[in-house]
């Protein structure tokens, strides 16, 4: 155990350097919004989902250690497992969520359910350790786009297609289609569903450079492109996926919400540049910034139903954000 303890100590030190302020704790908009919406009915399940989906994932402390280095350490199987299982607990957010889960579920959850939850978490940890990374090419067959930014947009689409945010939004969108075909979906449900689809994708808009890595970021700096062009290539990929997803709900509201997600998300994208992991949910902006983004998305989606001028205002806000944060991106080292 001495070896495991030494590694955990080093990882905790590295994590502490990253989490000096509350601002460094990022979350996923979809997760937080659903927790708030479902309140007591769904809080327990969602807190567990967070444990399962967020913490072995985007903010996994073990990501601080390169996989190649981990593989070289002379650890036996037992030590590797204990490292895998103990490492999330050096992240304060894991304690926070676990405490929340226990508080909400006290007395109402059986031992059996806790066991199921435990196995689920262990299962996801196991999947999290598998080298899913960049294998396979099915999602990489992307069509070409006109213009000089063609390959950048294709690359950005490939990056987006390896995040769970997209698939979460896709499932929501497909559910709406299924309900509209085979059941009666009340008209008043369409708008909240539009907002939910947009919110499911919105956390990715806070970390558009998250999957580029240091090497990719350096390449961006070397290309003779203005900051707004780099962001526009990111946004083009985002809208290419966000717009079709909104067809099943309310397209105008979906488009406005996507533009607002990008307009607000540029700030965190440029200022924080949080690295993300493939096949995980995105977690880019600090909690409050993320919640503000979600609120503005919902407001935009609702307001556009009254007047189309809101859509124009959203587009104007997006263009202004593109210009402003493009300039900021250029000035950063």
């Amino acid at each position: 155990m001495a070896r495991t303890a030494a590694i955990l100590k080093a990882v905790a030190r590295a994590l502490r350097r990253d989490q000096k302020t509350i601002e460094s704790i990022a979350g996923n908009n979809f997760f937080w919004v659903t927790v708030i919406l479902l309140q007591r009915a769904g809080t327990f399940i969602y807190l567990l989902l967070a444990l399962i989906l967020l913490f072995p994932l985007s903010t996994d402390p073990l990501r601080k250690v390169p996989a190649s280095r981990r593989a070289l350490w002379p650890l036996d199987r037992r030590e590797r497992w204990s490292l895998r299982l103990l490492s999330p607990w050096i992240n304060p957010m894991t304690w926070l969520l676990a405490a929340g889960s226990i508080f909400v579920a006290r007395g109402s959850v059986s031992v059996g359910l806790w066991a199921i939850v435990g196995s689920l978490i262990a299962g996801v940890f196991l999947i999290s350790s598998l080298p899913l990374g960049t294998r396979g090419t099915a999602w990489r067959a992307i069509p070409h786009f006109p213009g000089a930014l063609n390959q950048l947009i294709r690359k950005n689409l490939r990056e987006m297609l390896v995040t769970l945010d997209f698939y979460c939004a896709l499932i929501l969108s497909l559910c709406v289609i299924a309900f509209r075909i085979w059941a009666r979906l009340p008209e008043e449900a369409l708008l909240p569903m539009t907002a939910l689809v947009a919110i499911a994708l919105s956390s990715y808009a806070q970390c558009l450079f998250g999957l580029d890595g240091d090497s990719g970021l350096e390449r961006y700096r070397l290309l003779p492109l203005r900051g707004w062009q780099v962001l526009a290539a990111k946004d083009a990929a985002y809208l290419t996926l966000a717009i079709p997803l909104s067809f099943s709900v309310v397209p105008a509201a979906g488009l406005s919400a996507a533009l607002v997600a990008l307009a607000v998300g540029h700030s965190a994208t440029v200022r924080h540049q949080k690295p993300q992991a493939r096949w995980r949910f995105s977690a880019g902006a600090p909690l409050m910034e993320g919640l503000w983004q979600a609120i503005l998305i919902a407001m935009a989606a609702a307001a556009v139903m009254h007047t189309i001028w809101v859509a124009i205002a959203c587009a104007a806000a997006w263009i202004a954000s593109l210009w402003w944060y493009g300039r900021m991106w250029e000035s950063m080292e």
Partner: protein
Amino acid sequence: MITCRNLTRRFGEHTAVNDLSFEVDAGAICAFLGPNGAGKSTTVKMLTGLLAPTSGEVEVCGLNPQKDPIELKRRIGVLPEDLGLFDDLTVEEHLELTAGVYGLPKREAKERITQLLRTLSLEHGRRTFASACSHGMRKKTSFAMALLPNPRVLFLDEPFEAIDPVTSKIMRGVLQSAAAHGITVFLTSHILPVAEEIATQVMMLSKGRLVWNSPASGLERGLEEHYFEMVESPVVEELEWLGQPQS
């Protein structure tokens, strides 16, 4: 083609590059040498506009990297320290990206890409994603990206490290031919025999300061001997515990 005057870069209390002044003429191959942490990559970053100097002036192709960054980037080719590749693009797509962004006509771009892939033995791996490439392939891809837009100045950060001998020889040939056509090459390297073979100008950096700057022909002794004298001499300490039974 490259001019630095009193170039300094500080990171907090640490001075990475200290009062650097030099000139590199058009068509020169300048080897910028020094130990790890001497400030070579920091200097390259300042010359290519990736990092702003704390003080001093830089001019590349008659342009100030801080005032005209886009115009400068159009005229230079860079092989950066960490190669600057995207995991989600193939070798060929990286070259197509470069061609598109630098505005090369389609037919010309295709011809140049085919030629570069052939010259650098990248043809067989043209459809391999960068994430699946070997380090050598990645380096060759980045080198090809630097050459593709036909730049006026090439900045190459350790181009020969992790490269097989044949490709290294080809790259040296390409650089010498480029220099003969007036392209300026500014490279950093730890492989002194290679630097000695192709450089027309040698600069040595130690602890952020320029300690040697002369034409390669001005070196009276071998480059390695000069390097050990000017930069640092190797001291091999005996590690008695190596080879002892493990505790």
